[in-house]
């Protein structure tokens, strides 16, 4: 395996890991505030659909019922994705914060709802069996060439790394890594972060300190919604095959949840966990089967690997992960 192949694999690992990473951070915000969110998958799917549908709407020619935009359609899609995902997040919040319902059931309901409604609306609007049309260039996020990538091209080692791995991704990918730092900084360096972490550990302490538990939890839920929307938008606006396809999240919301547990609810480890999952996916895509010398791993095995790892992590085989203590419990003042 030569250097350029490795770079190629790493490059696609970054791309595969981005939706996982953003969804994983979404889950981190919610769970750090004490709300379990099994509905990441549903919110992502909803976001992906809204992004695909509205970007298509903006860029379709006027005679096809669209707005006929040449450029900028992806921003319409992005806003739609965030709005749709936040709405679902608020439903989850209403059920689990205000009504003190079961957070798992609410999350499952959101997943089912999203899986059904996206196909229903998609089929009705675009008549392509639930998919949205292929998006033109003006309706998606394009790779960005960072400055100096030509200048560095001839520098050994660093040049190709800069050109292929660091430069040449779209905006959402850069946002994902920025979000890791932002999440870390807000959670651990600001007053809001301190309160948010406290509400996930012991809401009673927050309440007796004179801070509203409900407002804090809603704010976290909304951030989760925004991030899930962006993660979904990446799937339909940021990949090489733009447009929404039914069930296109393909369990990524659950993989993100596994990565979150693997990372013990910490932002930077979450990034590494998601990169690992991305790497597995990249390898599976690159090689149909892998010859280990004494046996050949079939391609199907490689494709299943991220899901197998999810099961292994969720079953608790990677050391004890202690979730935020108040997670899953609605806050009721003790009697």
């Amino acid at each position, binding site marked *: 395996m030569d250097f350029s192949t490795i770079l190629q694999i790493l490059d696609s690992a970054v791309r595969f890991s981005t939706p996982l990473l953003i969804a994983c951070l979404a889950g981190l915000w919610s769970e750090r505030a004490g709300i379990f969110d099994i509905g990441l998958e549903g919110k992502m799917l909803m976001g992906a659909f809204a992004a695909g549908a509205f970007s298509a709407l903006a860029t379709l020619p006027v005679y096809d019922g669209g707005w006929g935009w040449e450029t900028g359609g992806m921003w319409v899609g992005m806003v739609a994705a965030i709005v749709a995902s936040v709405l679902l997040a608020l439903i989850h919040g209403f059920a689990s914060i205000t009504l003190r319902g079961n957070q798992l059931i609410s999350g499952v309901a959101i997943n089912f709802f999203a899986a059904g409604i996206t196909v229903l609306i998609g089929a009705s609007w675009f008549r392509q069996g639930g998919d949205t049309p292929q998006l033109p260039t003006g309706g998606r996020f394009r790779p960005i060439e960072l400055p100096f990538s030509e200048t560095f091209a001839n520098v050994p080692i660093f040049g190709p790394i800069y050109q292929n791995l660091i430069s040449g991704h779209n905006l959402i990918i850069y946002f994902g890594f920025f979000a890791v730092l932002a999440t870390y900084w807000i959670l651990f360096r600001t007053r809001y972060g301190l*309160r948010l972490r406290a509400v996930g*550990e*012991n809401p*009673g*302490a*927050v*309440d007796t300190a*004179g801070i509203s538990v409900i407002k804090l939890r809603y704010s976290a839920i909304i951030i989760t919604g925004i991030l899930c929307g962006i993660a979904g938008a990446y799937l339909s606006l940021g990949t090489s095959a733009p447009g929404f396809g039914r069930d296109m999240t393909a369990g990524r919301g659950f993989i993100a949840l596994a990565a979150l547990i693997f990372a013990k609810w910490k932002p930077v480890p979450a990034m590494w966990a998601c990169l690992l999952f991305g790497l597995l996916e990249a390898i599976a895509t690159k090689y149909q089967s892998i010859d280990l010398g004494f046996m050949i791993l079939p391609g199907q095995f490689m494709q299943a690997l991220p899901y197998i790892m999810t099961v292994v992590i969720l079953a608790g085989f990677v050391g004890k992960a202690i979730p935020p*203590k108040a997670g899953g419990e609605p806050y009721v003042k003790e009697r």
Partner: protein
Amino acid sequence: MTLTENPGQPNAAAPTPPAIELMGISKAFGPVQANKDITMTVAKGAIHGIVGENGAGKSTLMSILYGFYKADSGHVKINGIDTEITDSHAAIAAGIGMVHQHFMLVDTFTVLENVILGAEDGPMLKPSLAKARQELKRLAEEYELDVDPDAIVGEISVGFQQRVEILKALYRQAEILILDEPTGVLTPAEADHLFRILKNLKEQGKTIVLITHKLREIMDVTDTVSVMRRGEMTATIETATTSPSKLAEAMVGRSVIMEVEKSPATVGETVMEIKNLVVKDGQGVERLKNISFSLKRGEVLGIAGVAGNGQTELLEVLGGIRPATSGEVIMKGESIDLTTKADAQERRHRGIGHVPEDRHARGLVMPFQTWENTAFGYHNEPEFSKKFGMANQKAMFEDAQGKMERFDIRPPLPKLVASSFSGGNQQKIVLAREIERNPDVLLIGQPTRGVDIGAIEFIHQQIVKLRDAGKAILLISVELDEIQALSDRILVMFDGIIQGERLPENTDKNELGLLMAGVDPETDT
């Protein structure tokens, strides 16, 4: 909201208004009236005690003052100024701090982070943390409140955690500090340290409200004391003018004298022997400290005491719900398994029936029907079972019908769910289940708590009947009248030990009250 200019320096010209005035505070939780029209005044710079049994409404009252609950009626004055305490934020602004019984701390945070939570100076943490570090150093010197500011709260001892709670309040410049059962989790040395801190705070002009059910603490540190009983405030007295026995009497109260018709006991051989029983709770505090006694056939052994002095733990260990730390229990010559492996069903097989103190949580499954409830604990017995592990529901149902008739449970409908019965009838369901199994030993906790007068009489008769049938009965009750009326022998528990043993005919309420307060009056010998 306004605080006096110089806390701790009473204004000589004008009389200082009291720090706290509660007027006509009432609060109900559903049908339970936790506080009934309570009026209380606490002078500035005083240590004021509130005593009462568990469930008397002390914590509720203070939670209202701290804005954690909203009172149904009544109003509050702080330093003579009408103050509406809508939430904890308003309470903090009014200079009130509270150390809750169950600490309100974030275990994964450092001491420093816990202290600033909710009292940060700005959106960034760094300056707040730096300021708090300085402030903690000052408070530590001033009040003997040393805590490592960088320690993780979940990793320090409860004594230190409590200091963090006090520091939290002081950091928020509380002038009034409420402590809810502060010594329940402390070792005696830690408790002494706490009281030194409280006296220090008092010298600095802070007002302190101490909620406790331990009378010795009240006598040691308070200036004035209020007694609460069943949601009402029965007395407010200067501590110097009262005594532990008077307080105990006021706490337990004198209800209607209960007369139970019974013949002298014919006491048989020892059926259960408890030797050197020790029980520690989850926090390592000894709840039972080396308890030994024996229980004989044909007697009612009453255990008196203010609630929370180890009676519950004793009942649960014997009933197989809670493991013992050490010690031995011998039942009919055989040792009983006191480890976590034991369970209540195994106890029942050995002939130990158990009527738990809390019938809602432990005695019944409230949403289940009566015929199910009367079979629980015995549902695996042959007469309630069919082949292949199936339940014989018909037998259970008929059994329930019989029990309801014999115990006069009204309405006599086995299909009614337990929660639709009155307290007295619920208790009869539990009693019917346990008594009709004919146990050699019956453990009964608070048999008539929340039970109407008519049912009380019936329940007492049943207990005496069982005794006359040669069974041993261990009766635990916080109602002194009940203990005196039913018991053939009385043990008084205080702070996890047996403070004394008396025969009902040779003692009176005064003496028992002293024992319950941990005072040992001269013994006869």
